[in-house]
């Protein structure tokens, strides 16, 4: 039986994390694997932290990733990345979107946004890739395609047929936004 792989998506409500984890799960399902996906979305639209667990393999039981067994932390926001680092395996992989969103205490001037995050993360997890998601999304033509840019970057480190990704995107993204998202995905794929 092949081992179950675990991807934890993290970020802030409104960043399109839930759609990204939807596309990701669809890819796994089309690849013929068992998939479970789990998220808490009670208050997510009001700017709180959001996480989504995606697990895939021959047979998946728990939809929550066992603590300390995250293979890839796929994060949409710098600070949120740090919150979930303790859940990563040793030698786990990190993909971070280079985007800082001030939490309320920072916006109110009560706390400072932590500094040198990338360096600190790299020190613990050398296998860390930083993506300029917002820049690439703007290059694709819409800031809201950040999630698709990031999926492109993720697709590079996962071993699934490119066609599966494109089919999943076509299935999950509304017709009128498809072209721009395809472009965003492409830009994400080119990130080294």
């Amino acid at each position: 039986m092949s081992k179950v792989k675990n991807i934890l998506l993290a970020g802030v409500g409104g960043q399109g994390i839930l759609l990204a984890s939807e596309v990701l799960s669809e890819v796994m399902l089309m690849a013929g694997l068992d998939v479970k996906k789990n998220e808490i979305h009670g208050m997510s639209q009001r700017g709180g932290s959001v996480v989504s667990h995606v697990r895939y393999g021959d047979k998946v039981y728990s939809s929550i990733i066992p603590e300390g067994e995250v293979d890839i932390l796929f994060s949409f926001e710098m600070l949120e990345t740090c919150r979930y680092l303790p859940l990563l395996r040793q030698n786990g992989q990190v993909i971070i979107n280079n985007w800082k969103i001030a939490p309320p205490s920072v916006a109110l001037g009560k706390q400072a946004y932590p500094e040198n995050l990338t360096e600190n993360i790299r020190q613990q997890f050398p296998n860390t890739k930083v993506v300029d998601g917002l820049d690439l999304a703007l290059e694709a033509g819409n800031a809201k395609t950040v999630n698709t840019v990031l999926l492109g970057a993720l697709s590079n480190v996962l071993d699934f047929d490119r066609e599966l990704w494109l089919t999943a995107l076509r299935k999950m993204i509304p017709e009128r936004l498809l072209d721009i998202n395809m472009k965003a995905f492409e830009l994400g794929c080119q990130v080294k």
Partner: protein
Amino acid sequence: MKKILLSGNEAIARGAYEAGALVACAYPGTPSTEILENITQYKEIDASWAPNEKVALEVGIGACFGGARSLVAMKHVGVNVAADPLFTLSYTGVRGGLVLVTADDPELHSSQNEQDNRNFAKFAKVPMFEPADSQEALEYTKLGFEVSEQFDTPVFLRSTTRISHSKSAVSLGERRTDLPEPKLERNPAKLVMLPGNARKRHIDVEKRIIDMEDWSSSQPFNRIEKGAGEIGVITAGVSYQYVKEVLPDADVLKIGLVYPLPKKLIREFAAQYSQLYVVEELDPFIEEQIRAMGIEVTGKDKLSLCGELTPGRLKKGLFGEAVPSEDCSPELPQRPPNMCPGCSHRGVFMELNRAKAYVTGDIGCYTLGFMPPLSAMDTCVCMGASIGNATGICKVLSPEEQQKVVAVIGDSTFLHTGINGLMDMVYNKSAATVIILDNRITAMTGRQENPTSGFTLTELETYRVDLEQLCRAVGVEHIRVIDPYNIALTRKTIREEMARPEVSVIITTRPCMLVPRDNLERRTPLFVDQDKCTGCQACMRLGCPAINWDAVNKKSNIDKIICTGCKVCQQTCGFGAFLEYGEQS
């Protein structure tokens, strides 16, 4: 057969469809809300939002008495509201099958308590299925309808947040089309619960539970999965998944029907192991019943009564192993939810804070008025409680202190159970002030229609309740209808009505920012003229997420991508620093 990914809630909706249900009714509540939202895709089912859970269940009961299969859904605390019809429905039994979904929320991801509704099954003597993934959610919903008719009983389906909101692969079936047509059929001895009839029905209820106990020991939904034969585990629902993860070699008795328990099967299983665990979240519901059978088990002596399980928490409980958690980095700034930019509730709470009001609060997006910097909520118990709480606290305060008391409640919550409180407030001559934050939607749970929105669940236009008339009808004489974006007016009105030694109601009228049909409200964003801003931080009292404090330059600025142009901040600034793009500075 091709599989698709469904959430537990989507699977329950699908299950109702496949079972041939004709009616579905609910009041929204996380994590149950998407069940009804998804049922609307099946045009064969009449789907509707009720103003509260009691009405939702009563509508479901009516349909079932008419001979149709009906599904009723609510969050765990909703069952408290619906408990009155529920307990007697247990006596009448059903005609068409009735499945009541209770979506519990261990860990309080989005709730005011984490009550374990399996206790309701035992209390009301209503059988309860508990699925462990989306496929089971679909199957058990269908099974629920069959069992409901077979044993003449309503049936509970218990979900939890991790079942309702997780997606897993499901194969679909066809809809049943061979059910009898609903029509009137009188049966007063069964359906009119006067003492004489109810006494007889009670005997049937007790017999039904014993019959089901015997029957369920041989049903496939209670199954044994053989492992290495050393440890035995009894579990149900989502806990089953964690057991398989953490104890892959254990022998597992997975229970699908958690009430009544399959005692015969449990006895046979338990006899084989010297080490027997019961793994369940929250209360020792299964454990206590097994102990009462005289069987020794390990359970809540190792696992917490509070919060949900995870694979790590199970491991830690059983073997004492330390497991990492995301709370390991407490020094990181937290990211709690906040009202949206332009939310019509925000200015009201800023003014309540400034007026030093004692706010008896209620449940909705406006509960976030508790968070700093608004910090204007002193109590919050359950839906509708704000008004009764205000009446009660005023009874024991001096006249000066009474004037500080303000009940704050949303439109959906007011119609849910607040209106009864208001009736009492007038009837018993209280002096408190009530603010109804009418944003014309049930926003907190993801924007569902309600009787103040003018639309139904299926987006049909309908009568819009006139809150002002409604308050007048229960006898409120002083009613002020205000625009909450007008801060001076909001301040003046709140202070005047707080000072009035009689019941008064203030109704605010701006819609929720996130309702698409009201998007016209979204206007040009503002910016902060950096020359005019003195860094006094008066605007920071609003806590609008679009306003950021620039700690280096000591000035405010606005994120124009998320600012909705509500202009509330403009009115907090004494230096005219908040300007519209294009406006001269």
